[in-house]
């Protein structure tokens, strides 16, 4: 089955120049291994498509059950250079949480997200 990441995590995003960062935090600690397994740099790149022109970097924070993503070249130049409504990348958090995660029924049942 597929579930939306928003059922598994909350998030906050911000900017540094033309790079947006998205911190993805497991809603329950037991969801974290699933996030590590499924929310990879490749999948996030594929999810955002043309919205992110540069590379994606992922960092793990097991102490917070969280992942941090850097989305390079995603803010139209960033700062005052950008013409975008969201030049500071504030809504990239919820945009990432739209991502669909593949999870088998047994695992979903075990984690209580069915």
């Amino acid at each position, binding site marked *: 089955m597929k579930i939306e990441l928003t059922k598994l995590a*909350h998030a*906050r995003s911000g*900017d540094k120049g033309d790079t947006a960062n998205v*911190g993805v935090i497991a809603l329950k600690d037991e969801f974290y291994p699933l996030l590590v397994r499924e929310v990879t740099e490749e999948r996030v790149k594929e999810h955002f498509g043309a919205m992110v022109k540069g590379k994606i970097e992922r960092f793990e924070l097991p102490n917070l059950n*969280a992942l*941090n993503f850097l989305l390079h070249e995603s803010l*139209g130049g960033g700062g005052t250079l950008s013409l975008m*409504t969201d030049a500071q990348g504030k809504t990239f958090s919820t945009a990432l949480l739209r991502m669909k995660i593949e999870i088998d029924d047994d695992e979903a049942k075990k984690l209580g997200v069915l």
Partner: protein
Amino acid sequence: MKQIVRVASGQGFWGDLLSAPIDQVRGGQIDYLMLDYLAEVTMSIVQKQKQRDPNAGYARDFVSLMREILPDCIEKNIKVTANAGGVNVKGCADAVREVAKDLGLFGKFKIGMITGDDILPRLDEFLDKGVAIKNMDTGESLAEIRDKVQSANVYLGAQPLVEALDKGAQIVIGGRLTDTGLTLAPLMHEFGWTFEDWDKIAAGTIAGHIIECGGQCSGGNCQFDWENIPDLANIGFPIVEAAPNGEFVVTKHANTGGRVNIQSIKEQLLYEMGDPKSYITPDVVADFTSINLKDDGENRVKVFGIRGNPNTDFYKVSIAYSAGWKAVGTLVYSYPNAFEKAQAADKILRQRLEKLGLQFDVILTEFVGVNATHGHLAGAPPKDIPEVQLRFGVRGQNKSDVERFTKELAPLILTGPPSVTGFAGGRPKTEEIMAYFPALIPKSLIETKVEIIEA
């Protein structure tokens, strides 16, 4: 030595809730009030203000705030750390002295002034000496943009703040001081931490990171359970209660709105985060993967176990330079076929701009209500979408071309698709663009000055 020092955040950026710092000094016990006024864009704005008026160039909001809370601060012995000085620390300090005179408080306290961060007057000296100042992101050298530079500031750390506090300053004002140093310095001053106690320096830095955005760690902009966060109208700004061993609790005053819990703290910890293992400030390289959080009761989160590594030999420099002009304008189209009408208007506008032969580096169209925040991820809008805002922006090197664009939006009302409104604001404003040139500079080249004046 105090066993608990309370540092309260009063301002997350220049333009934040004016009532927040007042509530912090009156709503309960605190020892320090830290106020962050500067974003990257702010430095070029204050530099321009100073060029027009030598007495300007600092956060005037800070002076108004002092008029309100100085009596409370003196009475309760609350100390203030602020980067309100912009590019005119002396001007800011003088304005506070005037306030003290008006309030009959002159002679009752000392002001610490920190300067040396503004290196605009020294850029040519550095270039002449052959100091390599290169853009950290692109590798471009400073010489290539030198003639367009508007401001250049080093991010100074906690050291000069500690010195000012050690010398008895009650109000410490600097220019481009790091946000985190404003919280770390009081803890170093009170607990005697030095630049060898890296774990403690890292703890004070992370405490600063948590509270530097004000209400954003106490329930504001919090996704977790946002619908049930109580009374955001009366949101309490965060307070750090730190202990000499580097452990601290994040909390807020009783009888305030908002919420401090593990989730609100986690969200703020990850805000504007890069590599979590090396969060670099002038003071320390902090390791965010060492942070432990523990629920410590209602609206209290304990933070402990933090590790840090020695600081580097470099300061970060933020240089702002003119990079052309831009303008953004909007129109609103209503049902039926709101999206189709907005798309048609966009096409017409682009044709007219092309016919005029205007040159732009970038033209961006967004349809607010359809794709302005989540782009293509939002999918196609519903057929019966009630309204769509066309948001059209241009950017270019030629100011007159950008200004010419601003005159092409309103004509669409009478010469484009029907049922359009939302133009009451008049023509869009042409704005100068400031681009950023982040670089590193050896600490040994920077001369920081701390002065104490009577007030």
